[in-house]
């Protein structure tokens, strides 16, 4: 991806604008704030990746957008504007017209997301007939065309099959075909490749990139795999404990991660670099905090090697930096050494992807941002 690409996508109109979205799960034991004041926008034709570990709220955010949340989950604040219209204010019936038509979703598990007692044909033509108002014959033709598009060999025969007759990669393709069958404006892909082998993953990612060029749809790619993000995303939103902690173009994020959590995630991936020494991997110390009992200040502070006193008491705001980057952190990690290197192997913590020397954008060493 080049810089010119970035400017062209950001000049495109915003099709989805999420503002201050908060989703709570109210339970007997307490309230889990799964999504806390999350804002992001998607431009037409762009791939926006939402990255985070399990429990970071990335899937709940996407379900909130499509209003597919199951109780006790409930959107408590915010707005989700799709082409100017707030989806949260739509009636159930109006929402049905949007789902699967304008905005569609690929679910995480290809094994369980298809109905085992209906053929692929039944399942694919259902949404085509509903949204495109085609008759049965035309809908079947369209379904076959979609299956061919996603690379299923001899689709005329495969369409008569049941899900159990297909492999995982094939089922994921069927899910993709279903999501794409009504030419959506926006595709939400929730971990579309997590359950798949690497070679099949490469096929599906290549397919998504190809289709995006052909149909010109925008994609929200939800994943925990930073490798997948680096390969296919234009912009990245990093989530931790229900909040956005960093937002940047993919290129900027991988070249110069600014949030300690992003830095840790990138460092802890076993690399493919040809190094002589495969010593210890960098680890983020500790664990994700209990969502029922989040820390008072920054949610990442207890695991952060850069944390200062203020991090434990105040929540850092999401600040907009240069080039549309956003960051939720008091400390400038490119300028300050981690305070507690004892938690992490000394040689890998401060080095790594951050460029050596003081960064021109960041404040001088020891200075604090915000």
């Amino acid at each position: 991806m080049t810089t010119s690409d970035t400017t062209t996508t950001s000049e495109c109109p915003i099709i989805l604008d999420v503002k201050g979205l908060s989703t709570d799960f109210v339970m007997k034991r307490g309230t889990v704030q799964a999504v806390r004041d999350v804002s992001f926008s998607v431009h037409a034709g762009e791939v926006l990746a939402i990255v985070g570990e399990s429990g970071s709220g990335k899937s709940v955010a996407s379900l909130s957008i499509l209003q597919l949340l199951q109780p006790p989950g409930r959107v408590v604040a915010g707005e989700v504007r799709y082409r100017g219209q707030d989806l949260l204010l739509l009636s159930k019936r109006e929402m049905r017209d949007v789902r699967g038509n304008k905005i569609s979703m690929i679910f995480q598990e290809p094994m369980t997301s298809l109905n085992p007692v209906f053929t692929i044909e039944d399942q694919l033509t259902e949404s085509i007939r509903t949204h495109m108002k085609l008759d049965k014959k035309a809908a079947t033709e369209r379904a076959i065309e979609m299956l061919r598009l996603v690379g299923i060999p001899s689709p005329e025969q495969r369409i008569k099959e049941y899900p159990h007759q297909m492999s995982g990669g094939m089922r994921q393709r069927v899910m993709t075909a279903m999501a794409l069958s009504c030419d959506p404006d926006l595709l939400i892909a929730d971990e579309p490749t997590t359950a798949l082998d690497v070679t099949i993953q490469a096929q599906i990612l290549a397919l998504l990139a190809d289709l995006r060029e052909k149909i010109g749809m925008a994609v929200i790619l939800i994943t925990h795999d930073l490798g997948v993000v680096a390969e296919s995303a234009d912009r990245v939103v990093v989530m931790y404990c229900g909040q956005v902690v960093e937002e940047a173009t993919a290129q900027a994020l991988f070249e110069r991660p600014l949030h300690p959590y992003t830095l840790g995630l990138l460092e802890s991936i076993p690399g493919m670099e040809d190094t002589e020494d495969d010593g210890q991997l960098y680890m983020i110390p500790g664990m994700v905090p209990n969502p029922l009992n989040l820390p008072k200040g920054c949610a990442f502070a207890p695991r952060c090697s850069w944390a200062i006193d203020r991090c434990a008491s105040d929540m850092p705001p999401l600040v907009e930096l240069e080039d549309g980057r956003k960051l939720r952190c008091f400390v400038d990690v490119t300028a300050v050494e981690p305070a507690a290197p004892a938690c992490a192997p000394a040689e890998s913590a401060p080095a790594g992807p951050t460029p050596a020397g003081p960064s021109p954008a960041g404040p001088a060493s020891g200075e604090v941002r915000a």
Partner: protein
Amino acid sequence: MTEPLISLRNVSKHFTMDRDLLGRTTSVLKAVDDLSLDIYPGETFGLVGESGCGKTTVGKLLVDLYEPTAGEIVYNGVDLAKVSAKERRRYCRDIQLIFQDPYASLNPRMTVGDIIAEPIRVNRLQPVEKIDDRVGYLLNAVGLSANYRNRFPHEFSGGQRQRVGIARALAMEPKLIVCDEPVSALDVSIQAQVLNLLDDLSEEFGLTYLFIAHGLNVVKHISDRVGVMYLGKLVEVAPKRELYRNPLHPYTKALLSAIPVTNPALRTKRILLEGDVTSPIDPKPGCRFAGRCYAKGECVGCACDDEMPPLVEVSPGHFVACYLHPGAR
């Protein structure tokens, strides 16, 4: 060269899928087919392949959960099929397994302390009064507090449960631990913690690992030698660095290129394999990879469709099964 700790010699594991009226086998799933492999003391051998390639079956053969259909498993110079039941139990103690799914592999009704103490008690590895100390020691060894012994598995996160699974395997004082995708179900930041722990334990307890994974990047970090499996066959075996610098088999090359990299400078042209892994049920004769092989055209006059190429040594310690390499023809 030192003697291998354990050797698989031409081991096959076939499962009968279908029989005819007279009970004769008509359809066979060849999960592992004529596979030979040596694992040396103290090394970590990484075994890589896609789902359905038979890597887990190899692990289960090693821990004696499956009996081989053909071939022999030799441990410390003894053929396992020929030893007495008593010696066999001794062997089972030496080889332990860590499972893939930390949510399914711990009994939800037992405390963590009981889970770890059970193998010690059953095998009478410690006098009864010392079992408690041992459990505490093992919990500490895997980085958990000894006070956790009275907690139940549901109180732990995925990474912590995997640590409990590791402690349970260590309780048997094993020589070899078969790690069956131990980090696949874990988040990236937790993966690193568990990989580092396994690395530390191998030094502390003098362990040998067979590390099964489907991603070449995880294996690269932890292994000394790596074997690549495809449909029940080893297609390439090499010391780690050699394999990553100089992959020879077309399948290894495709696997390496399929890994998404976060460093844009390392991005290479992706080799996209067509189709899925073919079925291991009644495989066709010839190279198992032939149906998806993109390099088949390069090899003129090769017997790719007729006979599986043998695994030949092309440089010291680097074996490959492909007709593209002159030694195999």
